[in-house]
């Protein structure tokens, strides 16, 4: 399952950090953050609850880049 979320982030490197953090989150198979379009595309593992995983993704992203925001 793939979903796309709107994000808010200030610098291209921060977007890369977010992507890395999201990929390491449990339940996330793959993630792409586009700084150009300010979108985060998340591919989830089979049978996980996307909403719960995204909460964890958001927390992890906030850890690496406090200023970022993911609109769930």
């Amino acid at each position, binding site marked *: 399952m793939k979903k*796309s979320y709107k994000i808010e982030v*200030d*610098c*291209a*490197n921060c*977007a*890369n950090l977010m*992507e890395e953090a999201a990929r390491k989150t449990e339940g996330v198979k793959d993630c*792409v*953050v*586009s*700084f*150009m*379009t*300010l*979108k985060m*595309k998340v591919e989830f593992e089979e049978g996980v609850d996307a909403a719960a995983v995204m909460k964890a993704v958001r927390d992890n992203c906030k*850890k*690496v880049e*406090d*200023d970022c925001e993911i609109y769930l």
Partner: protein
Amino acid sequence: MNKKQKNLLTRIVIAAVFFVPLYLISEGIVPLSLPAPALYALFLIPYLTVGYDILRKAALGIRNRNVFDECFLMTVATAGAIALGELGEGVAVMLLYQVGELFQSIAVGRSRRSITDLMDIRPDYANLETEDGGMERVDPDEVETGSIIVVQPGEKIPIDGVVVEGASTLNTSALTGESAPREAGVDDTVLSGCINLSGVLRVRTTAEFDESTASKILDLVENAASRKSRSENFISRFARVYTPFVCYAALALALLPPLFCTIAGIGSGMALWRDWLLRACTFLVISCPCALVISIPLSFFAGLGGASSQGILVKGSNYLETLSQVTAVAFDKTGTITKGNFEVTAVHHSPIDEAKLLEYAALAECHSSHPISLSLQRAYGREIDRSRVSDVEEISGHGICATVDGVKVAVGNEKLMNRLGVPFQHCHHVGTIIHAAVNGEYAGHIVISDELKSHAREAVAALKRAGVRRAVMLTGDARSVAEQVARDVGLTDCRAELLPQDKVSCVEELLAENAGRGKLAFVGDGINDAPVLSRADIGIAMGALGSDAAIEAADVVLMDDDPLKIAKAIRISRKCLGIVRQNIAFALGVKAVCLVLSALGLANMWVAIAADVGVMILAVLNAIRCLFVKHL
């Protein structure tokens, strides 16, 4: 400016208003003496106003065990300077650091907007025609394939389809970067993302929104971020090692020399310790890696965006990097160098009127949908009245015999003429030759050949200028045709009569020859050459509008079919990589010099600020140049 930026600007202004008079007082320029604790307290106002979020981030970083980042460096350096009594300098560093941050944030916002404006192809709605003939505005997602949609002038075409009624001109610039408008009439295919300029069009959709061109392109652009270039990976690895390294180096600078001096008995006392601690703080400010960490990804971001605005979609910054190293290019012929549509180019040795001969040939072939027959019908150019044709006999591998207007007509290749016993003239022209016999008499032959694209010759020359040493044409076509085309466009190397699998082995051969001397690009139209596109170092698909296979297989997608864009793509990538290198060299160079100076005590805080914020602003400005590629 968005809310965040306005907020930061306000904080900077407030802090500056407090800071300037305080600095003048502390430096003794304004003769007003304040007790030291009061001055401290007053300086904390601008410091905290402008820097509280940096302090907070540094604290959060420590809590989350991501200690070493820019915020940490800044916090330690400024807090250290303030604690050592260098109030003015400490606050100034924080203030100017934030000015730099604000500046880069605005610059990034601007460049993002200019890219998204150019790539503004996502339609917001579709006008669905209802059964009673009315019109309903719906989400493009909800339109089913085969529905009729209405596109008014000024609107974006939301979904790919075929025009069923109306005629108009379309602006395709968002898709192709090409500003000349394109005509569209009944039965023409129109692509989503184009803007309807003049007339109302009724369009029968041929795809769902998700499968439409606009969605696919947006998808591609959004996914381009996933493939990182080596430079970007280098910077993120570099930052991970570099930041802790400079922190420890600063610590060593603060502790070791004074300790050594004290033990060696060269000097001692508070002044010595203070001096070295201050040097360490200066060292930290200089070493902040922001300039690199921000400008390198920004360069690629701007480079990809600039390329998209020219109708060149690069699937990731790693491909931009590979593209910049291309020294050899292999072309497919049909669809890349030539248009891939066959045209009647000459009629020879015809005893009857040429137009009459074409008419006979077109009518005789009117039941066939073979590309050759279609080109005959196009050359005839008028409505074909099939009732004039009777007794059609198709002789496989030879041609067609038919009766047209009561006259016996035979059109086909040399074998057909031999079979009918008609003596014929050989043709020395290159292309497909159609001989014709009317009433058993030889009536001349028609030459049909593929046309060169108008820019094919210039494109090859442009590639050579762009530093491509080797250009080879690969084709499945006959040798004579291939050689003629190669000569026409100025290519010296061509391999003809290749089957698709031969093309792969040809590319492998070229790869081996070119190894160590740069990268090999293959340019094709995506039809039959997907394996070759993926085998080459970098696959470039052209004229990809509407061709899914090409978009899938290629690393670089040229939206229109102008071969000049190949050289342009290479030039854009070279410019972008050049800027990346400039930024790396410039930032590291300036920092290295300043770091040494600060360790020797020759650089004060102001030099440090220039080396940090100044370098960052220059690097960001330089990175944004990647966006300007229109006249490259």
